């Protein structure tokens, strides 16, 4: 049963990657996938392939993260909005944009922004876990919903 699912999803992954390479704003004919030429080679090489690989990698890591979170907090309903991870990350991302005030070059900032967001996402998740340890699963949920309230209010990404 597990083997069948793996096989099925692998086939689905293969076809979705293929479809993502062919369809888009510019239609890339399937023949151009085998023998890329002219604009098609540029589009595939510079835009489509990096995007598809990044999308697959990000999807995989998100799925693993979700599973880890649910195991870690022993709750199958856990998601990053409940645990405060998303709010912490949003706060970090917004904070990094405020660093523009220190005249960081923009090119440098776009690479720094995800790191700062990650650090804050990690921090807020750890606080949530600490709250959960002390008060159990209900305290955890309430604590995680309160947590974003202490970060600067109403970043466009915060869930509530």
């Amino acid at each position, binding site marked *: 049963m597990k083997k069948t699912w793996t096989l099925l999803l692998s086939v689905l992954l293969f076809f979705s990657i293929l479809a993502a390479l062919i369809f888009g704003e*510019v239609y890339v004919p399937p023949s151009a996938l085998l023998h890329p030429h002219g604009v098609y080679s540029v589009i595939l090489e*510079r*835009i489509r392939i990096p995007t598809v690989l990044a999308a697959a990698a990000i999807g995989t890591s998100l799925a693993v993260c979700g599973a880890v979170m649910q195991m870690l907090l022993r709750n199958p309903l856990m998601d990053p909005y409940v645990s405060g991870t998303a709010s912490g990350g949003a706060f970090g991302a917004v904070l990094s944009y405020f660093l523009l005030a220190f005249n960081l070059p*923009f090119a440098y900032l776009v690479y720094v922004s995800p790191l700062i967001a990650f650090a804050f996402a990690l921090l807020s998740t750890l606080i949530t876990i600490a709250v959960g340890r002390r008060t159990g699963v209900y305290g955890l949920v309430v604590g995680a919903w309160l947590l974003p309230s202490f970060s600067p209010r109403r970043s466009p990404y915060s869930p509530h």
Partner: protein
Amino acid sequence: MYGLSIHVAMNRTILLAAVVAIIVVIGVVAVLVYRNETVVQKSTGSTYYPVTVRDASGRNVTLYTSPSRIVSLAPSDTQVLVSLGLGKELVGVDYYSYLLLKYLNATSDLPQNVTVFSPSISPNISGIVALRPSVVVDELGLIGDYSTQLSEAGLTTFYTNADYAGNYTAIEESITTLGKLFDRNTQAVELVNWMNTRIHSYESQGDTSVAYLLWVNPDHTFYTAGSNTFINTILNLSGGVNVFSNTTGYPVLSPESLIVGNPQIIIAQELTNLSYTLYMINTMPGIANVSAYTNHRVYVMSQNLPTFLLDEPGPLSVYAIQMINLAIKGDAPSYISSAWVESELNVTLPVF
């Protein structure tokens, strides 16, 4: 005794009747005098008013007397009104109108104590009412749903739709309409002639492919102008061909379309500042395969006067043809600044 009391009562009735009669007579005379006065006022003023003109929203707007206090809330309208010689009648303008006149060193066309409304999405209705304007002029696209509020505040409003003009004829129609409303028909004809003379002297034929970037998003998708837009008309008149003319309106496209379009020239509007604009263009995936980039034919227009000429369809837009034409011919600097446009094109707003 009895007879006397009757006599007194009768006297009282007569007195009362007399008082009533006097009040009625005074009232009637007052009404007559007032009426005569207004009639006299009308006949001493121009015979042009009252005039009824249909505005862009399809309403018939009637002005009963010559409007002496005008509020203009859009740069495209302010251009026209000042050009028609109504500058001194403007009691209030929006911030961007004032900014435009400041770029042109033409703020002296307005009264010295003109009220400038600070930039905001919603109009400052109480501020407008306080100016007691005879008429408020605005763009239909800018006023949106606030038009109801302006009408409810008792303001006479007149809307134009030049911001959605697809070509110069639509702008000229808007000028003619405003000329009709403000008794400036001859000036409107002169202004339209002025525009046409310049369009004919600036326009040129050519087939240089141009990509016009209105705005580049952080993910490198960008807004551009499609075939039915004013910008497309300007590109064609200045000897260019819009590579995205297969689209309509203002679509968001990805760098893929830019690679396929492979324009000979890229003209971009400044995003926040020049270095960020260049950063966003230079980091577009696949830009190295676009001939405009490899041949160093990327032009950035600064966000003040140069983009005003393209984004605010009005009389001054005729200079946009000349500006884009110079870029297409390769005679413009890669950063088309306000100062360059002022000195090179000698942008002036005619006042008739």
